[in-house]
């Protein structure tokens, strides 16, 4: 091996080695800084997301409080006033001799009052599901089903194999799920032209699976289905209780939504 005694050789070699060292150091420091920045960005986004969730939670809570108040007022004030009106009419009818026309008018008016009372009751139930607070989620659902079935347009049947898991739902989760089911039923009644709807609760270990089917026209099989207010509401409510959902594409074969959540795992407000 020849001895490397050239004057220019060593400076060039040192120069090359030095630059390589500098570049490698620069890359390492740069990558480290970029990763730190990315982590900070992710942490900031997480905080922002948590803040948005808290805001959404507060909005939904205040909306619930307001609905409960309106429902209670409707039930207590309007409902009571209508009952008194009906009783007064009955008393007046009992104390008055009426001809055939007046009797017909009286019976028609009573029918109208009965219908208004029924409507007020249903609206106040929808706004403030008192059964939910008093008897729990399952009873509230059966109550909702009876209201839906009474209307005659749609038949809702419930299959519940997860009573144990349902009893573990906290009040916020119960109310959210109840509202989601209300929204699904409203969508079915408004858009799907369905005659039958089925709600089933299936336990899979600690996971609660909720299936909602109807025999209507289903969702269009578009790549990105249009997310109306109803679906956005469902998404917000489910997001609030950390429940996942999927909509099975089923154009012309009815609508199917699957909801999954772990009761007792919902975030505390």
């Amino acid at each position, binding site marked *: 091996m020849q001895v490397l005694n*050239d004057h*220019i050789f060593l400076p060039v070699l040192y120069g*090359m080695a030095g630059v390589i060292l500098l570049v490698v150091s620069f890359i390492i420091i*740069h990558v480290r800084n970029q*990763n730190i920045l*990315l982590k900070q960005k992710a942490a900031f986004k997480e905080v922002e997301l948590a803040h948005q969730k808290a805001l959404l939670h507060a909005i939904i809570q205040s909306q619930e409080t307001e609905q409960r108040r309106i429902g209670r007022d409707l039930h207590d004030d309007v409902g009571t006033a209508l009952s008194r009106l009906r009783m007064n009419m009955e008393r007046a009818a009992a104390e008055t001799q009426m001809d055939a026309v007046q009797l017909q008018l009286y019976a028609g008016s009573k029918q109208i009052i009965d219908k208004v009372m029924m409507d007020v009751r249903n609206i106040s139930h929808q706004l403030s599901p008192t059964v939910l607070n008093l008897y729990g989620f399952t009873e509230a659902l059966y109550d909702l089903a009876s209201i839906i079935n009474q209307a005659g347009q749609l038949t809702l049947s419930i299959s519940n194999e997860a009573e144990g898991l349902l009893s573990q739902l906290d009040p916020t989760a119960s109310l959210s799920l109840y509202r989601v089911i209300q929204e699904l039923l409203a969508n079915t009644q408004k858009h799907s032209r369905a005659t039958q709807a089925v709600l089933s609760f299936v336990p899979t270990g600690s996971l609660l699976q909720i299936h909602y089917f109807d025999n209507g026209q289903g969702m269009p099989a578009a790549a990105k289905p249009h997310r109306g207010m109803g679906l956005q509401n469902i998404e917000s409510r489910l997001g609030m209780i950390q429940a996942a959902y999927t909509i099975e594409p089923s154009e012309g074969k009815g609508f199917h939504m699957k909801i999954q959540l772990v009761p007792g795992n919902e975030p505390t407000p």
Partner: protein
Amino acid sequence: MNHIFLRVIAPASILIPLVVAPVTRKQWSPALAALFYFLLFSGVINIVSTIMAAHKINNLPLLHLYTAIEFCAFGSFYYLAATAPLVKKGIGILIILFPILCLLNTLFLQPLNQFNSNVRTLEAILVALMSLFYLGRPAAQEKGPWSRDPCNWVSTGVLLYFSGSLFLFSFANVLIRETSAAAKMVLWNLHGGLVIVMYLLMTKAYQVCKS
């Protein structure tokens, strides 16, 4: 052994990105596509120069052509990868000017049988600067982790190769005249090592496309 590394292993290392890259061709950005075509061209030049060297024919004229095309290729790569209009405009002007400079250098300063150290050094500085510009772009333009951007890997390889070889390119003619064969061998082997590292990092860039 040294000759094998310099004349066979280092030039043949271009086959690594050329073989790996097509696997992810559907995910290539326009910049990566441009780079691949340049790598194909480089592969052809490597074969031709190896054959010329084996037949004792001076292959330096090829380097004069290669330098101009290499600069245009890396310029195009950064032109396509960059987002800032001003940077794009600057690179566009350089892509037009640099081949003219190469021609003038060959005609008046360093003829075809001489190492074109003037433009090769200038090319190394400009390409290293472009890679630095890319790597140092504002954090707001980052869309994900550093390692997921293929152009970051290409830029690392390019920066390492061109800045590492800068001294070698600028002193190439002096080294050819003044140093012993063994000294030249050490330095050009180091250059060969940098070439391999650059091609390996480019291979990684094409692999990253997959994810």
